[in-house]
């Protein structure tokens, strides 16, 4: 990614690390601002850590290409096809695992009457519903835009 400004010219090699750097810088500024209002050791430690992480991310962003950029450059049509196929399979497997987990937890709740199993089953069920809604939305989007 190349960011063109009127005054400066920045060549960002790893977009992902650059975004991480910006986020960690914002968090570090917030920590240090809170520190100025009320001194607390945890904010000082968090601020220093976040600044260090931001520095590392910026140095990576400007010095070498990130994994995503490398993959994007080295992929051809077969790689894209393989990624699509493996993503679909992964999603299918995740669905099966969640369904199985939900079912097992419901059976265990029926057998032992422990509320923990019901909570786990309901959480897994909620995740499944969310996943279904996301899949449906993505499908509708792709149908309209491809």
């Amino acid at each position, binding site marked *: 990614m190349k960011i063109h400004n009127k005054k400066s010219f920045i060549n960002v090699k790893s977009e992902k690390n650059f975004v991480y750097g910006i986020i960690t810088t914002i968090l570090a500024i917030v920590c240090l601002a809170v520190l100025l209002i009320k001194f607390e050791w945890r904010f000082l430690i968090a601020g220093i850590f976040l600044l260090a992480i931001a520095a590392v991310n910026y140095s990576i962003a400007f010095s070498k290409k990130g994994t995503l950029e490398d993959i994007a450059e*080295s992929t*051809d*049509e*077969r*790689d894209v096809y393989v990624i699509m196929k493996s993503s679909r399979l992964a999603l299918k497997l995740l669905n099966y695992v969640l369904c199985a987990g939900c079912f097992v937890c419901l059976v265990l709740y029926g057998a032992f009457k422990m509320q923990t199993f019901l909570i786990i089953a309901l959480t897994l069920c909620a995740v499944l519903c969310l996943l279904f809604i996301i899949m449906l939305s993505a499908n509708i989007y792709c149908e309209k835009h491809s």
Partner: protein
Amino acid sequence: MKTRVKEFRSAANLTQQQLANLVHVSSRTIISIETGQYNPSLLLAYRIAEVFGVTVENLCCLKENKELEDMQYENS
């Protein structure tokens, strides 16, 4: 899908890597096409056909593949 990429590549004395470089894909893609594991896109098929100076129809054995698919449809 059956293709004649390997046959034309051998005749042209090209390695898989050389052909891959000529059509801007990885050698893995060429291997997959040759073994029939991957069907190239229309554009890639055209690029490969252009390298060997043949038609896409000839390279991808479209007539034979169509007949084979028709037979499979009839049997199923």
